């Protein structure tokens, strides 16, 4: 019998399931994938291909070795899974080893393909579809959902009216008919339905600038729950703004590809890869690139902001070793620190401060704090990250820099949304160090995340006079 050695460098992740295919424990990458696939830890294995392999290995009682792939929301994860079924004495589950863990961002499809795909998805999921003429007047409408039956009747009775008179558009006060592009994507409500519906207007005919008519689709944002149908009294608790994530789900995917292209091309010009160029032009290109990077970072921040502000936003609860998280965050920012000759010092032993929180959120906060410290403190200084216990049932991780520090007035505002304080005069080479002119959202998001994990994020004066940010979390 050849057992698998954990020291094998090919092993990318390790996990353990039980007799009911619940993932009991997993290394960070596997745990994150499980989370991104919508599963819990511990909880039923949520990665479809791995689940099938585990079930097969258990059923046959054989050790399997198969390639698997999964989509984690942003990127394709591939790996080579080795599944070792365990005896009943060992829990009756499986040992899961993934070799060659690999995460590759999907190459973004062309804008046109992407739009076609979105249209196809919307057509497939629309519960109301209609045909309009060139002036957006109703020709025919058919509804599949029971709560849209009233709309169908109304459309039949008032054929020829502008379609928007039959629904209630939310957030659009202009009178119809508006240009179709302004309404495409809007949210509306319809008589007899408690649900929010997304409007799609897809132009028909050979000339998109002068459409011969429109395909109207209404796509419900929520599934139809039995008691939501025609019960006008029960509306009270429905959130005023339905959690439609405009930035994260609609804007970010569309904008990311062109932004990446702008940045890449500007970098090419800046580095004079395509041929000799006058100094000034190279500098302009460098400004374009850093502005592009700024926009990209801003987009990420706005998407995050949307997530933390969604009603009912919750984080996972798992043990997080703060010293480990700090070391990883420092590792990620190592190159940036090196560029400014900043030393990153981590104090506190692993295992000494273990919080109950969500690992990737803690990592996100730490990257924000350490990134700020690197950017705003003078070059060639030290940033100290300390993980330690902090009183009754709390643990804390502190990030202290040797910069100019923060005045009490600044401290009062620093966590506000879009607050930028004009800090950073000490970082005298903004251009060089890249895009540290943040969106003013980083600390706001970090504090919101800390609160969502029953923790807190505060700022105080470091012993050496710089700024000290303290993230406190409930201890395990």
């Amino acid at each position, binding site marked *: 019998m050849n057992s698998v050695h954990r020291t094998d*460098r*090919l092993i990318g992740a390790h996990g353990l399931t039980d007799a009911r295919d619940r993932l009991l424990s997993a290394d960070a990458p596997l745990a994150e994938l499980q989370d991104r696939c919508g599963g819990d830890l511990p909880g039923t294995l949520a990665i479809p291909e791995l689940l099938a392999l585990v079930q097969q290995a258990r059923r*046959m*009682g*054989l*050790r399997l*070795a198969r390639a698997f792939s999964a989509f984690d929301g942003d990127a394709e994860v591939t790996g*080579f899974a080795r599944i070792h079924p365990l005896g009943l004495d060992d829990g009756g589950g499986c040992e899961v080893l993934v070799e060659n863990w*690999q995460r590759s961002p999907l190459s973004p499809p062309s804008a046109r393909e992407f739009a076609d795909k979105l249209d196809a998805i919307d057509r497939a999921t629309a519960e109301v579809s209609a045909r309009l003429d060139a002036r957006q007047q109703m020709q025919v409408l058919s509804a599949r959902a029971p709560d849209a039956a009233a709309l169908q009747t109304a459309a039949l009775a008032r054929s020829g009216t502008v379609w928007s008179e039959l629904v209630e558009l939310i957030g659009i006060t202009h009178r119809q008919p508006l240009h179709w592009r302004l309404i495409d994507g809007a949210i509306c409500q319809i008589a007899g339905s408690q649900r929010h519906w997304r409007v799609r207007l897809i132009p028909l005919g050979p000339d998109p600038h002068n459409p011969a008519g429109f395909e109207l689709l209404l796509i419900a944002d929520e599934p139809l729950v039995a008691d939501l149908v025609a019960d006008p009294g029960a509306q009270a608790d429905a959130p005023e703004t339905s959690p439609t994530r405009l930035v994260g789900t609609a804007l970010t995917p569309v904008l990311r590809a062109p932004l990446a292209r702008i940045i890449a091309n500007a970098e090419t010009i800046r580095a004079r890869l395509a041929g000799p160029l006058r100094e000034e032009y190279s500098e302009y290109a460098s400004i374009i690139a850093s502005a592009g990077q700024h926009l990209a970072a801003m987009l990420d921040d706005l998407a995050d902001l949307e997530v933390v502000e969604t009603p009912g936003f919750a984080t996972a609860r798992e043990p997080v070793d703060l010293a480990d998280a700090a070391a990883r965050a420092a590792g990620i920012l190592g190159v940036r620190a090196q560029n400014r000759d900043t030393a990153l010092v981590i104090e506190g032993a692993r295992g000494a401060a273990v919080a109950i929180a969500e690992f990737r959120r803690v990592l996100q906060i730490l990257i924000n704090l350490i990134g700020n410290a690197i950017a705003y403190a003078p070059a060639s200084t030290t940033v100290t990250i300390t993980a330690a216990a902090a009183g009754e049932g709390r643990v804390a991780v502190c990030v202290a820099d040797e910069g100019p520090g923060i005045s009490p007035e600044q401290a009062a505002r620093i966590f506000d949304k879009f607050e930028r304080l004009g800090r950073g005069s000490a970082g005298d080479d903004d251009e060089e160090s890249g895009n540290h002119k943040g969106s003013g959202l980083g600390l706001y998001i970090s504090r919101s995340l800390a609160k969502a994990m029953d923790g807190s994020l505060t700022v105080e004066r470091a012993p050496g006079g710089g700024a000290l940010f303290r993230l406190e979390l409930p201890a395990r």
Partner: protein
Amino acid sequence: MPRKMGEETMDLAADDAVEAILRDELARETRALGAVVPVLRHLLGSEAKALVSDAILARVRGMILDLSAQLLAALAGRDPATRAPHLADPAALDRWAETLMADEPLLGFCHALAAESLITERLQQRLTLDPVLSPLLQELIASDDPAIAGLAMHTLAAQSRFMQSQRRMELPLGELPAELFHAAVARAQGMVRGGAQDGTALMRLQAGYDEAASRLGLIARLVAAMRRGALAALALDHAGLALFASALAAATRCPRAVAVLACNEGQSARLALLLRAGGVALPAIERQLMLAEPAGRMPRALAGISAERAAALLADGAAAT
């Protein structure tokens, strides 16, 4: 004709039974005879020459008999690796072989292995390509990463065992994919439950199985370990058929057997589409086609086919058969 009741009816009944048996026998033999010409025509037909040659038939039959011998050995409580077909009851061996031959997936798997070994030998004759140690495998063995180098060494050993056992027309049970291994062992277990045979050897066989340690498992792991470099394995003359087929299967997510059989003569459209779906550039595809089939031509329309369309065409083709 008046007839007495009694004996004669009895005799008639007995005759009926005998005749019925003979009639069945005759029908079976007629069927066998009737199958000869179509099978012959198929075997002699130019289309299928490479796909069902005598050499392939002999190897498939040999592998099935070898698997039967191993299962019989395990049922008799012996180590299956010793096989010892002379110890087995020839009738039992035939019965097992007949049962296993009825297993279509198993037959398909053995066929692909036989084709793989024959194509490998052909490449050796034509290109002097080492059937065991290809240039790519050599590079991988010399890798800086000890894990990859180790994996490549194991693969080398497994590939050398494979070529040897193919010459002997044998197939160790442990080289079967998990599904086929499971089906074969489950059949044997059914016999244990029915009869008085010992099941412990089967349990040992099952516990010792590790797909990751089989030749195909090792090659698949090696291809996965090459990550993006796996594109380098999409060249027959560089990677050798074994790595080439696994890399092509991984890149296009088609069964490995399909990738192997696409390297046969007369399958160049499939090979071209597979390579296209795997993201190989046109000039490189043309070169690979020449290697697989020197008389072959690249389908002219290929230039206009995107990788996605190629994958879709292959999927349509698979669904149609």
